[in-house]
């Protein structure tokens, strides 16, 4: 059940670099979304990316998982330079993500949505599926077990069979996290996973994120506007502003960085 991503990373020790981006520049027509950005993610950390609206955070994630192709700069994954790849190939390398504007499959149930997360782990072919009994069913059941674990973990048992379109916003975000987790990724990209949640739910969500990090050693890139959350749960923080990197370091360092305060935080956050 190992995917290629996992095998690539298996020889990476905690503390070593999983992914780094170097001198990334990206623009759309006249809009410069990212200018010369470099930073890295080391194995097992929670790396927050913060910055004002339109700073280029989401675009950064899109570069990492191959949806945007930067005009300049390189992405190194597990120490190797990554060639131009399609997003689905990158997914198979063990990078999963959630989206800022929820991107669940609206017509499917929670269970099916999370099952799609297992896609990179499933191998049976059409013919086997056509006749179901045998390998196809076997594989479905095995993966179902994993998914049920995730469902238990995220405490969404009761909505297992509900079409996700009917769920409230916050639960949808949770299901989306479940879908990303189901891929058992090496690197998990979270784009504002806690937007639209109240404190209690944010606490739960933080808990899930930390648990994933601790239990599976997953590396996490997190975009979030709630400074309380960011400062509490991240190990290191990158700050973007107008497509440029203006700060990088531990939460404490960033918090006291004047450029960051001016551009984003406004007042020094306690």
């Amino acid at each position, binding site marked *: 059940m190992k995917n290629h991503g996992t095998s690539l990373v298996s020889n990476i020790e905690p503390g070593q670099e999983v992914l780094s981006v170097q001198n990334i520049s990206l623009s759309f027509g006249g809009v410069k979304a990212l200018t010369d950005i470099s930073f890295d993610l080391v194995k097992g950390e929670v790396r927050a990316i913060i910055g004002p609206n339109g700073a280029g955070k989401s675009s950064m994630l899109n570069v990492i998982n191959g949806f945007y192709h930067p005009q300049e700069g390189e992405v190194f994954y597990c120490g190797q330079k990554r060639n131009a790849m399609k997003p689905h190939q990158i997914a198979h390398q063990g990078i999963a993500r959630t989206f800022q504007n929820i*991107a669940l499959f609206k017509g499917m149930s929670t269970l099916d949505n999370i099952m799609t997360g297992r896609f990179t782990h499933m191998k049976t072919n059409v013919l086997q599926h056509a006749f179901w009994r045998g390998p196809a069913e076997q594989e479905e059941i095995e993966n179902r077990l994993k998914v049920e674990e995730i469902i238990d973990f995220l405490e969404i048992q009761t909505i297992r069979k509900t079409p996700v379109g009917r769920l409230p916003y916050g639960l949808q975000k949770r299901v989306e996290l479940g879908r990303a987790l189901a891929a058992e990724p090496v690197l998990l990209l979270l784009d504002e996973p806690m937007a639209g949640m109240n404190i209690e739910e944010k606490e739960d969500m933080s808990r899930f994120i930390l648990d994933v990090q601790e239990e599976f050693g997953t590396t996490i890139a997190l975009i979030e506007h709630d400074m309380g959350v960011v400062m509490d749960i991240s190990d290191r923080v990158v700050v973007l502003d107008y497509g440029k990197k203006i700060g990088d370091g531990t939460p404490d360092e960033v918090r006291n960085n004047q450029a960051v305060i001016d551009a984003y935080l406004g007042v020094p956050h306690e």
Partner: protein
Amino acid sequence: MFYRQAGDFKSSYREDLQTFALKQDRWAYYALLVVAFLVVPFIINDYWASAVLLPFLILAIAALGLNILTGYCGQVSLGTGGFMAVGAYACYKIMTSAPDLSIFFVVLLSGAVTALVGLIFGIPSLRIKGFYLAVATLAAQFFLVWLFNKVPWFYNYSASGQISAPERTMFGWAITGPNAEAPVRYLFCITIVVLLAWIARNLTRGRIGRSWMAIRDMDIAAEIIGVDPLKTKLLAFAVSSFYIGVSGALFFSVYLGAVEVGEVFGITLSFLILFMIIIGGLGSILGSFIGAGFLVLVPVLLKNVMVNGLGWPTDIAAHIEFVIVGGLIMGFLIVEPHGLAQLWRLAKEKLLLWPFPH
């Protein structure tokens, strides 16, 4: 009121993966099969077979196929007629060049040929989406029909360009040709239908089906999750075309017996099949059947009522039929945009909750 699901007690995931989760459903289904195989053949007459049951079964296969492509994978296609023509002509060519091959395999092979053709026409779907794709599939529709009409090889150089199905038998029973008996043709079709429906169900309940639905619901997200859009869409095109091809082959060989491509497999047929799945329910196996049944039966019914029952002139009856069918389509969409199958599901949900309203 006896429609009850006694809690969600499933002791294994295998049970949870079953097609019919409820016992009642399962029994109803078995009963239906028994009736279809053991009762209907004995009471069927030519009229019922030719006017209702055969077209229903055969078009249901096409509807299944289109539903896989459109309902599950989200790629709207208006080329169904053209692909059915591929199935029909493949069937004709195989029948005439390999007279000894069992008709069953001829039909399956025709499906396979169509799958290949569908694959080719599926390639643009990687770039073209939505209604743009729908309209673009008309290219297939018109081109294929033109091709079968233009190239004499396809109709074995016959003077008129029509193809007629020669007699082929299975287990000594004539399946095609003028001597085929209604019950035999019916049994042949229903066997294939049940087989294909079962396969469709299998394909859509697991990994493959989910990858289709993922592409349908949000292709970008699907790709980021690891679904290869090209492969997935092409697979959907191929599988769907297989079904449609089989349906075309049966339509020609078992049902009509003789076919002129432009007239039978024209764009009207493409639309008819599309109606079936939308009225029945996109992304629903059951819906394909309900839709096909509805659109085959209603016109026949209306006609019988108005012309034979009320004695109206045939043309006025036909016009009124148009008005009614059009009105019904709109009416159903207003009542339940997700099709008759969804209506049925909601009704069941209500029954499950009975007697509490919510």
